[in-house]
């Protein structure tokens, strides 16, 4: 459950009051179509969904299979059954998708050919590289002048955006927790072949101020790059703050998909009741 500061007045809380922050992508067509069936222990994952908004949230309690779905999309493991197709950024009616995996046809692209860039929940900065080397890891050398220009532009703009430009020469061991998380997310956005950015609980365990900053940074980045984001959370406040499309997962299945205000209405009510109750007990 979200950690809520009980002293902040509920009605003006930015997390719960502005459901339309995420701008729609230039095209409403599906960017990614996902079908995954896989069994882990007693959990049977069986999901099918489409990503057609700029920011989509996989919402569900711990252990409902969210991380496994992200790993399957990235290609870190091969599910028992999967059919995942990505579609180009500027979709035209004739545009055909790229099959990332189709277990029935025996197609399974390796992660580096999928463009599904994943930032894991636990930051994994490479300890032997500086911050600069870390964020450039996903963009290994440019093959032509245009790419070179793009890389140089990213190398200046991304550190500035994520406020890590003063840290570029440091090693991960010399960073604070918040700085580590900034670098972790900045590194993912710099990947060269990025079609979709997958974020596994990117803000869990961060204080509120940092979370708000990172969300703003990611939204600014997204507006410029037009890369769709699929993030995982079990935090109602975060879902409302992003105002994103929500895919609600429970016990490995999609329960509902739609705008956050509809899909998580019940969760929001419960949260508000709790807040009121805690305010009441304080008074």
């Amino acid at each position, binding site marked *: 459950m979200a950690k809520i500061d009980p002293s902040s007045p509920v009605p003006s809380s930015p997390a719960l009051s502005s459901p339309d922050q995420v701008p729609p992508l230039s095209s409403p067509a599906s960017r990614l179509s996902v079908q995954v069936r896989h069994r882990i222990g007693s959990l049977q994952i069986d999901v099918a969904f489409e990503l057609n908004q700029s920011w989509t949230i996989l919402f569900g309690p711990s252990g409902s299979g969210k991380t496994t779905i992200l790993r399957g999309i990235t*290609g*870190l493991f091969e599910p028992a059954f999967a059919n995942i197709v990505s579609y180009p950024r500027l979709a035209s009616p004739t545009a055909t998708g790229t099959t990332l995996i189709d277990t029935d046809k025996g197609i399974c692209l*390796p992660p*580096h050919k999928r463009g599904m*860039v994943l930032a*894991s929940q636990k930051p994994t900065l490479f*300890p032997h590289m500086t911050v600069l080397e870390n964020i450039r890891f*996903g963009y290994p050398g440019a093959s032509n002048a245009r790419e070179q220009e793009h890389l140089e532009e990213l190398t200046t703009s991304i550190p500035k955006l994520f406020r890590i430009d003063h840290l570029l020469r440091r090693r991960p061991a010399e960073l604070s927790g918040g700085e580590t998380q900034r670098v972790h997310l900045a590194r993912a956005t710099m990947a060269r072949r990025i079609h979709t950015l997958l974020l596994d609980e990117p803000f869990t365990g961060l204080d509120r101020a940092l979370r708000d900053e990172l969300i703003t940074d990611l939204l600014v980045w997204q507006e410029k790059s037009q890369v769709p984001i699929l993030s995982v959370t079990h935090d109602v406040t975060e879902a409302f703050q992003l105002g994103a499309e929500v895919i609600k997962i429970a016990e490995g299945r999609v329960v509902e998909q739609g705008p956050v205000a509809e899909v998580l209405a019940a969760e929001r009510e419960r949260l508000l009741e709790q807040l009121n109750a805690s305010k009441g007990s304080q008074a």
Partner: protein
Amino acid sequence: MDFEALWLTLRLAVGTTAILLVVALPLAWWIASGRGAGRALVQAVVALPLVLPPTVLGFYLLVALGPLSAPGRLLIRVVGHPLAFSFAGLLVGSAIYSLPFAVQPLASGFAAVDGAYVEAAAGLGASPWRTFWRVVLPLTRGSLLTSAILTFTHTVGEFGVVLMLGGNIPGATQTLSISLYDKVQEFNYAAANRTALVLVAFSLVTLIVVYWRGAGRRFVLG
């Protein structure tokens, strides 16, 4: 002190180490990331030189590299002379004999790399090749050095395979250990003692370096 034998031994050890690093890197990576019966088989074959008498290895190599076998005859045709009783033959024999010393430190080093880094690299779009060179190998530099040092030292100290495969040809196949054996056969104990001391001192210093580095790493990590 037999400088010709010393020089030959050093060349053999450097050559063997170079060959084995090239062979052991992919092999150790495969062992560290593989599974199943195939992996157990490869591990067992790699470890064989540890348990077999060197004479067994030397004998088979002598047969395999000589004119008695098809690969041996092919080699003789390609190289122009039999590999047995030559420096090149010694290199082949040493590489096989020291294989476990090159592979095992690397394999355990690779296995100890946090899989989260490998997955992070893949999640950023890095190919397995790039992940190996830029992430895995830099994180296992210590194991790589241990592997190289142990291979080098072990090659300096080998005797049985060299004797079986190389004979005792000064300048071509007479290494320090063989030269020492020769001196003892001639009852030249003073010369034998000098050679033996060199080998003991060299091995001791190298092992101290290996253990010292190992202890230092653990200390830093702990």
